[in-house]
């Protein structure tokens, strides 16, 4: 058990690959990404079998990493007394407009949910309770917490359970034996070492993919990472699996949310938690326009898209009307923000804004791929194994099962740990050593190439390529500047330029190790973006306006698209193909109602 601390940054300028040292680590279970889900994979695996060697490869430092770095103010799902896991699945299904969704996954997750949250409370997370000791619900399913310490609490437990954490090692590629996953490789961003983790099974839990699209606040100045999602989760987990042929599901169902304007802060905190209604510039209640779809309780994508539709119709800006909030409520709301997105409180202070006099402005976010919110991620079986044997996925990285959030990602971490343990128990063949070392050499060459080219090389910086991609995705693949709309021709244009970017990986250069990490992140972003565009192209209908809007197919087409859209990339040729899988309703009831 150990949290292996990183060193201070070192400067290395290798002149050849031979100067780059390789560090090999052997383990039973490798977890790529020690975030919310990853920490639960580790604690569960060690609980079930303390003799297992469990290693976490973490890009950041595990105490403050990923979505929960700054903390949380709520757990969006916890099944209240009198409600069942089936009820939660019905709610989740209605939130995504009746699906399709993987009800098998959703149900097994729901059955595990409360126990995972009870774990968090036992570990020291303050969950707010009323005077009778009953958990305080914020809405129908979400409960309030003082979660500033949520990430350190989860991380400490993973370490205490006996996981070994390699901090500041950025996963770049999987290690394969034939078609099966036997580990992963990564870049030591502080020490410059190339890490090779040999494992009997691997869980990928690198979170979702932010920063594929341009954010409207990214005005080439200091606000380039002012997005809602953690900007350091760039989709590397998806990219690593996709390049080795793991099937991706539902990436076209992007996560777009209503967020505070100019500073991408949460809005549910205000609109749900404090019942501050959404209004437009004419003081009209926006959601009353959607009364037939549930009004304030309309599916999430409708609520997310509603303020943007007001802007389009010339009725923006829109606000959360906080003007009637009592001072105690304002204090409680600010406390919530301090727990989750503290700098939003600083933002309001830097606008000199008194929210009881001036309402909080809201707008749509840039789109993200997040299998813990919407459904984009790996296609997994009930054990959470992807279509690549030995490779499991949990949290935002696993697809098909939306509305997981903190509790669901934790629960799924446990399920993936159990799946991986069962897989290892079945007995595994020893990998072919010659094939493994060939992969290590070729991945090392790929990963370090930008650094070997050096900063003076007349090439392309990681930031330049990232920004080229972000503009492309924003304007052609339905970003916020386009009010999330796209069409066949724009998507074809995006694909053509993504191919150009891929062919220009050969010009990427890096000045130091941090830059080298960014060069690899950028390549991952481009590969994930390619998958996203294929997904958007394949769904020739509009099922979840805002999350997925096709201007050339504005209606829902149940005859052809009440199913999952999938993609697979051929590991040999790099060619991407899209196909569908059928939806199966398992939980009875009206799909559109909770």
């Amino acid at each position, binding site marked *: 058990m150990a949290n292996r*601390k*990183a060193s*201070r*940054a070192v400067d290395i300028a290798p002149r050849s690959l031979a100067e780059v040292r390789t560090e090999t680590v052997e383990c039973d279970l490798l977890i790529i990404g020690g975030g919310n889900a990853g920490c639960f994979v580790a604690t569960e695996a060690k*609980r079930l079998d303390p003799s297992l060697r469990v290693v976490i490869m973490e890009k*950041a*430092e595990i*105490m*403050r*990493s*990923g979505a929960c*770095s*700054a*903390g949380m103010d709520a757990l969006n799902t916890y099944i209240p007394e009198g409600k069942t896991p089936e009820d939660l699945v019905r709610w989740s299904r209605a939130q995504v407009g009746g699906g399709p969704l993987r009800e098998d996954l959703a149900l097994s997750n729901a059955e595990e949910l409360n126990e995972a949250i009870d774990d968090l*409370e*036992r*570990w*020291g*997370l*303050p969950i707010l309770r009323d005077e009778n000791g009953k958990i305080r619900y914020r809405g129908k399913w979400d409960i309030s917490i*003082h*979660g*500033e*310490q949520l990430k350190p*609490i989860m991380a400490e437990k993973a370490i*205490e*359970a006996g996981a070994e954490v390699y901090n*500041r090692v950025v996963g770049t590629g999987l290690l394969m034996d034939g078609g099966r996953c036997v580990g992963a490789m990564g870049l030591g*961003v*502080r020490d410059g070492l190339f890490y090779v983790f040999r494992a009997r099974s691997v869980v990928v839990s690198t979170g979702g993919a932010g920063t594929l699209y341009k954010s409207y*606040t990214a*005005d*080439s*100045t*200091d*606000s*380039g*990472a*002012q997005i809602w999602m*953690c*900007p*350091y989760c760039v989709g590397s987990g998806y990219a690593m699996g996709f390049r080795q042929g793991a099937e991706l599901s539902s990436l076209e169902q992007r996560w777009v949310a209503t967020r505070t304007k*100019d*500073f991408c802060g949460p809005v549910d905190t205000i609109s749900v938690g404090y019942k501050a209604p959404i209004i437009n510039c004419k003081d009209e209640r926006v959601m009353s326009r959607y009364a037939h779809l549930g009004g304030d309780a309309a599916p999430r994508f409708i609520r997310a898209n509603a303020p943007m539709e007001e802007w389009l119709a010339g009725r923006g800006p829109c606000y959360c009307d906080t003007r009637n909030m009592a001072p105690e409520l304002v*204090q409680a709301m*600010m*406390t919530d923000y*301090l727990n989750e997105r*503290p*700098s939003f*409180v*600083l*933002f309001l*202070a*830097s*606008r*000199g*804004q008194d929210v009881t006099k001036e309402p909080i402005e809201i707008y749509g976010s840039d789109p993200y791929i997040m299998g813990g919110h919407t459904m984009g991620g790996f296609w997994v079986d009930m054990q959470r194994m992807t279509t690549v044997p030995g490779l499991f996925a949990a949290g935002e990285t696993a697809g098909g099962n939306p509305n997981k959030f903190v509790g669901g990602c934790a629960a799924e971490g446990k399920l993936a740990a159990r799946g991986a343990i069962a897989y290892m128990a079945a007995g595994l063949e020893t990998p072919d050593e010659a094939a493994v070392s060939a992969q290590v050499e070729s991945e090392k060459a790929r990963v370090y190439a930008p650094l070997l080219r050096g900063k003076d090389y007349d090439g392309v910086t990681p930031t330049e390529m990232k920004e080229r991609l972000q503009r492309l995705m924003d304007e052609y693949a339905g970003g916020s500047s386009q009010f999330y709309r796209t069409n066949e021709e724009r998507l074809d244009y995006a694909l053509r330029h993504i191919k150009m970017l891929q062919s220009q990986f050969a010009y990427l250069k890096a000045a130091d190790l*941090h830059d080298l*990490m960014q060069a690899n992140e950028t390549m991952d972003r481009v590969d994930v973006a390619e998958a996203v565009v294929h997904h958007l192209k394949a769904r020739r209908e509009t099922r979840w306006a805002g999350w997925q809007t096709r201007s050339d197919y504005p209606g829902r087409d149940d005859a052809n698209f009440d199913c999952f859209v999938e993609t697979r990339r051929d590991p040999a040729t790099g060619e991407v193909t899209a196909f569908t899988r059928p939806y199966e309703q398992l939980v009875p009831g009206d799909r559109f109602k909770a």
Partner: protein
Amino acid sequence: MPPRILTEKCNGCEGLPESRCEEACPGNLMVVDAATGKARCRCTRDCWDCMSCTKACPRAAIETRIPYQLGYHKASLRPIMGKEHITWKCVDIHGVETTYKYRNRLAVAPATQTDKNA
């Protein structure tokens, strides 16, 4: 201009194998400059404003600032970390100060309730 280093307060976390702000940043943005011995942010444009570095600094040498393109000069928000509490002091551009203090950890019995099944 997210993290702003108060160089008179920063000592580069002298003596520690890794500086606290460098350790905390989820984006690997903080680094102690070899020439000056002081912390700096590699690229303020890439900062998420998560305030992890600000919370972690033992010398209160980091201030988080909202980029000017988004918010005016100058407001401040200072976290003061206790063992089971956190206190925040916020001053807005008009000089109005507000303090928030609350519990951020429950006391947990030692030698762990980690695991009731163990």
